[in-house]
């Protein structure tokens, strides 16, 4: 009330002053207050109206201002006073109205401009505020959208803009904070994902080191997605790790079994896989190479296992074959126990190591060698059996060997021993069969030989003129002769049947019947021919005798009787054949005759066989050969003494030397030869040549001369045991002999030369030695 009154009073003064400026109704202005002033002004002159409007507006604005500041009065007074002052001035100056109006108008204009400026300013400020609010709201909305949350702020229309802004700002700050937190979470998760995926991919350089976060989508859903992804990756990582560990374990087991160095193998695959390395690479490459290694090792294991099983099989077979003692088997129990094991069952350390397999292999090789040596033994035995059968059946052994049966060929691997064994078995059965089929004929042959023996004996006996002389054992001889005559009479029939049988046999078999390599039929034929010739000879002799008898008779008739010259000559020529010799013989003669018949036949056969050519070449010769049968028999019965003597006589031609005394008996002959070669340079050249030839013999060109002298005491070829003197690989004992010191036997004046000296033509420069021209 006080204020209003004051206002009224303050307003009164200008109006009163304005009214007092020359207008008639000025007093009203002062009384009616402000509105009246304006009206006054408007109602009055235009200028006055505008002035009042200005004042009014001032007043109102000031009033408004005063209401807030409580200092209105000065302003009002200042404006009003200024106006009145201006009025006063104008009045004093006597300014014309026109100028006054203009001035007022200017004033008014200026006032308006000031107002307008301020309003514009305020307007701009408001717009800024609005913008800020809108921005904040938009930001908020964005963040909310990004965070995937419903905007918490519901826009309130009430309240001023500043308030709104004030309300929204903290929210925005909040949300920003929230967003940053979220970003941090995202970054962390993404980082983990990245690290795991790099680990999984195995790329050593970290490709996307900077974690790119999609700002537009930071929703929980996405975060959850990422977390799930991370979990998945972690799981995968775990799986991989487990896989790697599993594989490492498998590898370890494999290495153990195969006897390989695990660490070395693993480092070869990937250096980080080593046990000592805590961080294991789990990327694809090492896993792949690891699994490749494992599969390779598995292959190796499988291979080795098969090999070992093969070895074990052969080993067991060989054991069974050779009855190997259990303690020897025990050592390789661990080999044979794998024989039926599956691959997975073999887990024992080193059970498939190379060393182990090699051991097993060497054992198998040893066993196989043993086996071959045993087979060889068996082979030799079988061969002996075969030869025995052949010998008994008087077949030629060599002919039976279609294949090479030598041990050398086994060693060289040309023939497998088992094949050979089979062959040999076949041969034996074949030979047995053949021997069986020959049996009948052979018996006949035997009889025939016996008969021939008797025939020979009889012939000799008949030639003995003293056969009828009385003496010890004569009656036995007579008996034998009687029997022999019976036998001899049977010979032609025997020969005929033999020939028939042999021919039938030959027809059946379509091969020649060979008796110790000589055709039986031809033998029989020869015999018949021989007999025929003998018969003729006998006939001739008989004729001659008869003629002689006639002559004798004639001479007797003329000159009287004379003792027969032929008889007395015979007596002198053959003093001992029938008489004393046979007498001594006669005690055991019958028995000997039987037991030795076979042997004798053999001896004669060997002779027949050894020089069949000779036999066929001349019948006369073979006649003497037949005669020699009996003498041969005697030879065999008299024993080896005679052989040796013949041997000695044989070596006689090499001239006795003092050196020979020192010779060992076994190599006497050949060493003689060599000694001849070295000692006998100066002997007759012919002699030297001879020995030289013998020395050359390795090429098997043994001179026929030697053969003929040796035939007598050479073992017949049909006799078995041609055991190779030196079976290779089978270790043979040396032929050793202790060698006592022997005083050297040196021949003065003659020099030995080594091969080199001879070749180089080196001759010792000695005056008394005869120079030798050897080259």
């Amino acid at each position, binding site marked *: 009330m006080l204020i209003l009154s004051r206002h009224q009073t303050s307003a009164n003064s200008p109006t009163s002053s304005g009214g007092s400026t020359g207008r008639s109704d000025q007093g009203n202005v002062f009384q009616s207050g402000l509105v009246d002033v304006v009206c006054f002004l408007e109602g009055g002159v235009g200028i006055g109206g505008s002035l009042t409007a200005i004042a009014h507006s001032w007043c109102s604005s000031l009033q408004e201002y005063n209401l807030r500041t409580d200092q209105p009065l000065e302003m009002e007074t200042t404006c009003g006073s200024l106006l009145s002052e201006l009025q006063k001035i104008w009045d004093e100056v006597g300014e014309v109205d026109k100028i006054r109006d203009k001035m007022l108008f200017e004033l008014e204009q200026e006032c308006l401009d000031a107002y307008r400026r301020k309003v514009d300013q305020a307007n701009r400020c408001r717009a800024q505020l609005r913008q800020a609010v809108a921005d904040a709201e938009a930001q908020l909305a964005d963040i909310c959208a990004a965070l995937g949350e419903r905007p918490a702020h519901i826009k309130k229309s009430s309240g001023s803009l500043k308030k709104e802004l004030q309300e929204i700002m903290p929210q925005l700050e909040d949300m920003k904070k929230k967003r940053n937190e979220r970003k941090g979470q995202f970054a962390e998760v993404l980082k983990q994902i990245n690290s795991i995926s790099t680990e999984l991919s195995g790329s050593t350089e970290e490709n996307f080191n900077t974690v790119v976060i999609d700002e537009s989508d930071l929703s929980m859903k996405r975060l959850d997605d990422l977390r799930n992804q991370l979990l998945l990756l972690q799981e995968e990582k775990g799986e991989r790790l487990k896989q790697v560990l599993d594989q490492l374990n498998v590898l370890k087991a494999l290495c153990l079994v195969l006897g390989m160095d695990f660490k070395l193998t693993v480092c070869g695959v990937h250096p980080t896989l080593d046990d000592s390395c805590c961080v294991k690479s789990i990327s694809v490459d090492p896993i792949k190479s690891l699994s490749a290694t494992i599969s390779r090792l598995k292959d190796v294991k499988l291979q080795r296992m098969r090999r070992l099983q093969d070895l074990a099989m052969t080993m067991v077979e060989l054991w069974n074959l050779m009855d190997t003692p259990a303690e020897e088997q025990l*050592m390789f129990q661990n080999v044979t126990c794998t024989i039926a094991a599956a691959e997975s069952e073999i887990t024992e350390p080193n059970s498939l190591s190379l060393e182990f397999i090699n051991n097993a292999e060497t054992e198998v090789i040893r066993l196989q060698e043993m086996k071959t040596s045993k087979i060889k033994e068996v082979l030799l035995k079988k061969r002996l059996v075969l030869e025995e059968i052949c010998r008994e059946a008087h077949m030629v052994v060599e002919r039976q060997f279609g294949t090479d049966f030598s041990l050398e060929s086994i060693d060289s691997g040309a023939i497998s021993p088992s094949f050979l064994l089979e062959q040999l078995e076949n041969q034996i059965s074949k030979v047995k069969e053949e021997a069986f089929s020959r049996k009948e004929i052979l018996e006949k042959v035997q009889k025939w030989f016996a008969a021939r023996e008797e025939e020979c004996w009889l012939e000799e006996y008949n030639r003995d003129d003293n056969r009828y002389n009385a003496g010890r054992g004569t009656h036995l001889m007579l008996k034998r002769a009687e029997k022999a005559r019976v036998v001899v009479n049977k010979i032609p029939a025997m020969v005929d049947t033999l020939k028939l049988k042999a021919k039938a046999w030959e027809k059946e078999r379509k091969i020649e019947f060979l008796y110790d390599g000589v055709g039986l039929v031809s033998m029989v034929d020869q015999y018949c021919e021989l007999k025929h010739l003998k018969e003729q000879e006998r006939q001739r002799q008989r004729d001659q005798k008869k003629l002689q008898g006639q002559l004798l008779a004639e001479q007797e008739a003329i000159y009287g009787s004379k003792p027969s010259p032929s008889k007395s000559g015979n007596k002198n020529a053959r003093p001992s054949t029938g008489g004393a010799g046979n007498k001594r013989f006669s005690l055991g003669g019958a028995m000997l005759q039987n037991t030795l018949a076979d042997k004798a036949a053999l001896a004669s056969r060997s002779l027949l066989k050894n020089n069949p050519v000779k036999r066929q070449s001349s019948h006369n010769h073979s006649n003497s050969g037949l005669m020699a049968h009996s003498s041969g028999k005697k030879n065999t019965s008299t024993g080896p003494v005679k052989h040796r003597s013949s041997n000695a006589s044989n070596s006689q031609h090499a001239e006795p030397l003092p050196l020979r005394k020192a010779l060992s008996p076994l190599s006497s002959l050949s060493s003689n030869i060599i000694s001849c070669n070295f000692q006998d340079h100066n002997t007759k050249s012919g002699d030297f040549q001879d020995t030289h030839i013998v020395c050359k013999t390795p090429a098997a060109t043994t001179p026929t001369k030697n*053969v003929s002298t*040796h035939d007598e005491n050479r073992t017949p070829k049909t006799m078995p045991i041609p055991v190779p003197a*030196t079976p290779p690989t089978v*270790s043979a004992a*040396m032929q*050793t002999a202790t060698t006592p010191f022997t005083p050297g036997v040196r021949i003065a004046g003659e020099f030995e030369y080594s091969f080199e000296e001879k070749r180089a033509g080196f001759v010792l420069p000695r005056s008394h030695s005869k120079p030798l021209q050897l080259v």
Partner: protein
Amino acid sequence: MTAAAPPSTGRELLSPPTDGISNLRFSNHSDHLLVSSWDKSVRLYDASANALRGEFMHGGPVLDCCFHDDSSGFSACADHTVRRLVFNYNREDVLGRHDAPVRCVEYSYGTGQVITGSWDKTLKCWDPRGASGQERSLVGTYTQPERVYSLSLVGNRLVVATAGRHVNVYDLRNMSQPEQRRESSLKYQTRCVRCYPNGTGYALSSVEGRVAMEFFDLSEAGQSKKYAFKCHRKSEAGRDIVYPVNAIAFHPIYGTFATGGCDGYVNVWDGNNKKRLYQYTKYPTSIAALSFSRDGRLLAVASSYTYEEGDKDHEPDAIFVRSVNEVEVKPKPKALPNPAT
């Protein structure tokens, strides 16, 4: 009786000597092989590569050769000279001369001396380090009872086998006189003498298919161990044909030894157990020389006619290098042991 499989004689070396091979030896350091021949040459082969590495021509047939080290060697020539050969530079110089063809040469690693034996009935020791010229390099001359036919060294022991079946055993440290004078236990001319690798004795072979195993130890116990055995013979028609035993070579590891004879066979023997371990398939002609490589894995075999029957047609000279299987040379004890596990 012919085996169908090709004879496993070993690998034949390319470009062999064109005439009789007098000796061959493996190096102590490599698989190089030195070969002397009657074609007046000494050849150096790389046995493992089968390649000819060098060739030296001499004035006469070369009767023996030996290695000095891997890069040089010595040769004994029928032109009375002893030569030193340097392989790297293909250089040769005359170490000295004998009065007759030099039959054999040995190098002693212990004393660093070359020992040569000649048909002039002397043994000479040479110092190969001396400047060339006989006066400087000749260490000593030692008269022998007869022409030297074969030499062998082990440690400080030197065994000299001569004509007339003499055997002298020297100690290299005192060459003034023989440590032992012996006569060969065999009754025929000595062909070859080789010491045991363990240094306890020597093996001596003769022209009459026999090898004597001798011991240095002169005590009764030592001498009771000696023996002789027959080998390289062929039984034919109840008679032995006897061949000279030209070569003996001891296995450096097992102490077993191989002998080669004019029958073309190489036999491997176990002297301790008196067993023959192996016989290789027959070579085309006489075995002139044998040598095991330093580790005993290779055996060089010279299949070359040794003129035992004078001048005649013969198979071409060849060198075979065969790899030696352990079973062929490993001694087989009488009781079969368990195989090594």
